[in-house]
């Protein structure tokens, strides 16, 4: 029996089937997704989701490089699949269009930490607590946190040499540095923070509507 060709074509066929189904077909369906445009009352067109600005885009690379994705997802599942919405991790489920500008998206696979798809939204008007990146266990009621943070993105400098930095972290208690020293976030820390703040998906899309706001009576 001549098994060579049979094997070759069998392998080719089984491989191509799943390749077509899970790579080509989704690409045809999603490949040319674009942001959703809408025109407001005075004729200005805006698009959602918006593309990230420079610093936040750099921050995404740091997030990727430091392996934050090993513990954090960035995808909100519908209520039928888990408690994502009940936990306030988003107002609606995530859909493919939310990620059109991501190069590439990092939806994640593990939730040792909270989902971050809408982290910026959760911060609200609060500034990003940079101390979270230095040591998450210094935040209130967070001593048990497993989040490693990224202390290597901060520099200790002496106020005598560099002058008092306006961005230096205010540390108190056991974490406080010796007098005359300060802890200054590096550019990378600022970029990572800008990225985290930029994480938000609460925009109205045709395929994923936001829950209706309570109408005032």
């Amino acid at each position: 029996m001549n098994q060579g060709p049979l094997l070759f074509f069998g392998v080719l066929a089984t491989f191509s089937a799943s390749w077509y189904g899970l790579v080509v077909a989704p690409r045809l369906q999603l490949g040319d997704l674009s942001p959703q445009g809408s025109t407001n009352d005075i004729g200005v067109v805006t698009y959602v989701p918006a593309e990230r600005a420079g610093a936040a885009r750099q921050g995404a690379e740091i997030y990727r490089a430091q392996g934050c994705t090993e513990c954090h997802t960035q995808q909100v599942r519908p209520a039928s699949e888990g408690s994502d919405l009940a936990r306030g991790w988003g107002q609606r489920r995530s859909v493919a269009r939310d990620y059109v500008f991501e190069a590439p998206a990092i939806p994640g696979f593990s939730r040792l930490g909270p989902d971050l798809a809408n982290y910026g939204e959760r911060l609200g008007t609060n500034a990003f607590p940079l101390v979270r990146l230095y040591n998450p266990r210094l935040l209130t009621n967070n001593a048990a946190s497993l989040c490693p943070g990224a202390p290597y993105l901060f520099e200790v400098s002496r106020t005598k040499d560099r002058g008092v930095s306006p961005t230096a972290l205010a540390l108190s208690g056991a974490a406080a540095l010796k007098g005359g020293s300060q802890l200054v976030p590096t550019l990378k820390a600022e970029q990572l923070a800008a990225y985290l703040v930029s994480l938000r998906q609460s925009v109205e899309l045709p395929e994923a509507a936001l829950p209706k706001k309570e109408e005032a009576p």
Partner: protein
Amino acid sequence: MSAENSQITRPDAVDASCRLPVLKLVLGGLAWLIAGLALLLGASLVRQLPSLGGCEYFGFGKMAAAARVALTYGFAIQTGLGVGVWILFRSSSRPVPTGLAVAAGSVMWNIGVATGVVGIILGEASGIRGLDFPAYTGGILLAAYFLIGLAVLVGFGANFRGSLKLPQLLVLAALLWFPWLLTTAQVLVFWMPVRGILPALVSSWYEQGLFWGVLTPLTLAALWHVRSEDGSPKLARPAFAVLGFWGLLLLAGWTGATALVGGPIPAWISSVGVVAGVLLIIPVVLIGFNLFGRISSPGGSLAILSGLSFVLTGTLTAMTSLRCANRILHFTVFPQALSELALLGFVGLGLLASLYVILPRLAGFAWPRAELILGHVALSGLGLALSFLPLLLGGWIQGNHLNLPQWSVNSVNGSLLNCLRLQGLGLLVLLGAQLVFLGHWVLLCVRHFPAVKQFAIGLIQEEILKTQATVRSAK
């Protein structure tokens, strides 16, 4: 298995021709197995003691990704290829004509893996699971594989007569699947990157395809080779084995969609993932009929452990594809535990089982100490159980607690901490087990040092002569 009877079947021309390529691939793989386990252990340690994880280079995220690359590419694929080369040529008693090219490919492959692991540690990870390494690593790996794969296929095709035996069929299928898979994934992730959510889909398709379509056939070939005489495996239900094999290939890539169930992808993809995941139980059972029963080789119990891991991996993959289980276990530590069971339990122990047969055959000497074999098997089994079972339980606890919004993430993790600790202990035992194995191999070499030295010198001379002969005959 005894120390007195240290001279076993004398190596013939086939064994001699396999030495360089097979040893190169297998020993390179073992080194990565140990490095990968050490990284995994380090990752598990800094995860539990996050204040240790403050180091830029050895944080949890980086070490976990680096361990995946070391274990998948450095160990599993490379050792699998080594065992595959042995099976292809040994089963049809033909010498390898292209050993030097295979060995050269293996050197390049190791360079590739090293750039990947170091690249991730230095902060150049791609963030895409399965292809975690930087883009340049991908290029090196692909080139190295083409060298190895072509050398093996050309060398095999040149001398092959007769009909293929089942283990050979499996190895050839894996050798053909892999380049397509790797090339497609790399093109879409690195070279002509697609934006948005698609790379995540490509990556899970790739990961599952790699496991079910490449590593599984290679490992099954190894397991069946261990129970074969003259290259033909003695199986309980050979027809089931063949059917199961094609079933696996058919479903391999499709199961990739399970990783994104409920995620930001079109609903039909989730459904396909569920269906493929559940159907997987059929080939797994068909193959399972042929994995157990008495084996009389020294690594026999490892083969049984590996078979058990295979059936468990398949069954749990199928079960967790179901919505009701997925709703709890998705995003917990359980999927990680399952992929460790698959990679270290099934693939790892399966390949090691075959090495108990292959390595002495290549050297011409039997394993010197039966108690070290026993130690390796016992520690491997214990380590595997300790690193898997706590995470199975932990994943269940974590998932159920995550589904209750009143549980804060910190308290969910608190309920999981002891399971994570036990897993760390399991990894430590598993690492110890492999060190025993390596020590045993070194002992074998030291015992027979003069012979080994002769053999190493002979090996190189032989290859040079053979290459010269090939070149001459080509002229």
